């Protein structure tokens, strides 16, 4: 807080920026990443202004584009929340991807298995199946962390690979759509489909509500206080009588549940079936989003929207200019680098820069 105190002596505008640097730095990071990206695009022999215009036009310029963008944004918000919630407890859930596809599959499964359910109930059952699948999948990592001391970064990565192999088996063998060459499931019943309101998918509204709810839980409830305390200082948390092991498992359950919900919303609202090729990379974008949002639940919404715009608009780049849509991966990677490394903050705010937060403490605990 000395930083804050000293900052008060500065010019009021400057002081305001210093106080809000967890907002300012990500914004500038995005801008700088776009600048670097434009150089890279120019190196490919393409006018960067035109390229960016194409992306934003395709993503936001039409109702169809907007729908697609919001559809992309929806699971990203939830994946970002998943990573952010775990970060609050000092856990780095790299396995949002695995939890998300588990959720996507089991929501689909509920969607094509239960018959004769009323529409609203069927959707609910589908979403719940996704939440439970994702939550339990992440809880494995939580239990391993709390009771066996296995670092969550390793275990969640292993669980990602296991989930991919497991689902590959399920869609190739027991749940393969009969008479299909592609490994995929049958479609879900219409009763399990999430509807759209114009260009706004219902899943998107659901994701917004969930983000607000999580924000409230983290900032206003006793449960959130325990999460934050374990994340901020686990020794003090133990001293204060918080059951750390329990919190670790519970937070992973919640984190995985959110990722699973992301997969479920995708299955029930967009793809209507499960196919391994569908949800690639969403979980990893979740990491970028959570770090861009500085683990603030509400901030995952704009962060996810940005990523959603890029992901939604990028395919047109290939169409118009022959630039691979993977440019987005590169752009996001540069953004993440600039957000996560304290370079920008130090460059802009000098001695007033906030220290980067430490979340890991090695493998021991």
């Amino acid at each position, binding site marked *: 807080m000395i930083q804050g105190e000293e900052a008060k002596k500065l010019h009021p505008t400057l002081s305001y920026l210093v106080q809000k640097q967890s907002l300012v730095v990500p914004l500038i990071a995005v801008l700088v990443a776009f600048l670097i990206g434009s150089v*890279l695009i120019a190196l490919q022999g393409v006018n960067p202004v035109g390229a960016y215009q194409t992306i934003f036009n395709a993503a936001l310029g039409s109702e169809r584009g907007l729908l697609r963008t919001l559809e992309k944004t929806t699971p990203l918000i939830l994946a970002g929340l998943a990573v952010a919630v775990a970060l609050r407890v000092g856990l*780095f859930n*790299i396995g949002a991807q695995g939890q998300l596809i588990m959720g996507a599959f089991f929501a689909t499964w509920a969607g094509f298995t239960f018959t004769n359910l009323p529409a609203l109930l069927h959707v609910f059952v589908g979403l719940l199946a996704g939440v439970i699948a994702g939550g339990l999948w992440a809880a494995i990592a939580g239990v*391993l962390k709390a009771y*066996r*001391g*296995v*670092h969550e*970064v*390793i*275990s969640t*990565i*292993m*669980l*990602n*690979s*296991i989930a991919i*192999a*497991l689902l*590959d*088996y399920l869609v*190739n*063998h027991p749940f393969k759509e009969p008479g299909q060459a592609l490994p995929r499931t049958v479609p879900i019943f219409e009763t399990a489909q999430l509807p759209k309101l114009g260009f706004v998918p219902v899943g998107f509204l659901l994701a917004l509500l969930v983000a607000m709810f999580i924000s409230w839980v983290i900032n206003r409830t006793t449960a959130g206080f325990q999460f934050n305390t374990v994340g901020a200082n686990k020794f003090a948390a133990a001293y204060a009588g918080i059951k750390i092991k329990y919190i670790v498992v519970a937070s992973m359950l919640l984190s995985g549940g959110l990722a699973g919900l992301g997969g479920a919303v995708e299955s029930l609202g967009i793809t209507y079936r499960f196919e391994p090729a569908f949800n690639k990379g969403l979980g*990893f974008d979740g*990491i*970028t989003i959570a*770090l861009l949002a500085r683990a603030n639940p509400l901030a995952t919404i704009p962060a996810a929207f940005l990523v959603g715009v890029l992901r939604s608009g990028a395919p047109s780049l290939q169409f118009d200019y022959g630039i*691979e849509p*993977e*440019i987005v*991966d*590169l*752009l*996001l*990677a*540069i953004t*993440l*680098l600039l957000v*996560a*490394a*304290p*370079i920008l903050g*130090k460059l802009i705010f000098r001695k007033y820069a906030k*220290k*980067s*937060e*430490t*979340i*890991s*403490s*090695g*493998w*021991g605990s």
Partner: protein
Amino acid sequence: MSKFLTRHQKPVLWTLLVVFIAYGFYFWDSVRTTSILNFTLSYALPLILAAMVGIIGERSGVVNIGIEGQMLFSAFVAFFAAAATGSLIMGAFLGMAAGLLAGAFLGIAAVRWEMDQIIAGVVINIVAAGITSFYYTPGKSLPAIVPRIKIPVLSEIPLLGPVFFNKSVFVYLTLIIVVVLQIMLFTSKWGLRTRAVGEYPSAADTAGINVFRTRIFNVAIAGILAGTAGAYLSLDAAGWFERGFTAGRGFLALAIMIFGAWNPLGAMAAALFFGFASGMASQLQADEVINIPQQFINMLPYVMTLVVLSFSAGKVRPPAAVGQPYKKEG
């Protein structure tokens, strides 16, 4: 020699036992035994190198979760450099240089910027995936395959000869690196200082050792080994490159490092064990001795990692200062 034997009784006995059993199987079925062991070694090789990267980093107090990305980036650079220059040596060299670069980044981010080491590693992975997937161009091929070098006499030994002594330069290099690292870590001045920096950095600092420089140097040098692993993967083991090519080996390597209790030889044994288990499962599957869907065979190393870690994570002790940026008090 006798001192070595008494001090390392257990590992020596285990090695002898493994060799004995291997020959037992060899005389029973020489073709299959040789093929399984060949598979074991080629599977284990990148894991061994990657585990060395992890060991050097953690022994100096820096977690390297970015090995995966370092390898991916190096494999990419090695492959396309070799394809572009028409020289495997150039490819390997530039691959290692790419590893050095990625290693140096982690060192500087973790030490100079005091960035969270895990986040820094994840950033490396994501940036490497971003670069390699954007700049990936299909349809390129290598100018040649990496030659096998037959070691005279040794390569004539049954079983051991074809498995260990008729291999590419990468295999010999890796075996040498493991042995040298084992010796350096525990009996050299560098090793003593490195371990001090990883165990109790302020003690090293007050004894006149530059903690920051030691850490950055070690993590960067380890990057060269990650580069070697990447070059091996794309130039030798596969002969091609594709997106997401390293397939999680960098993470398996960290588990192997823990399983091997942060010892180079221990990690090598763990990697060989992983390779053997996978090779055995594939062989049994191919022979229709067991009938398990391929996906479950693919899962094996990951499940093994979880099982192994949940039984060893609490038992072996990591270097005490791993993951913590060193700050001078004030």
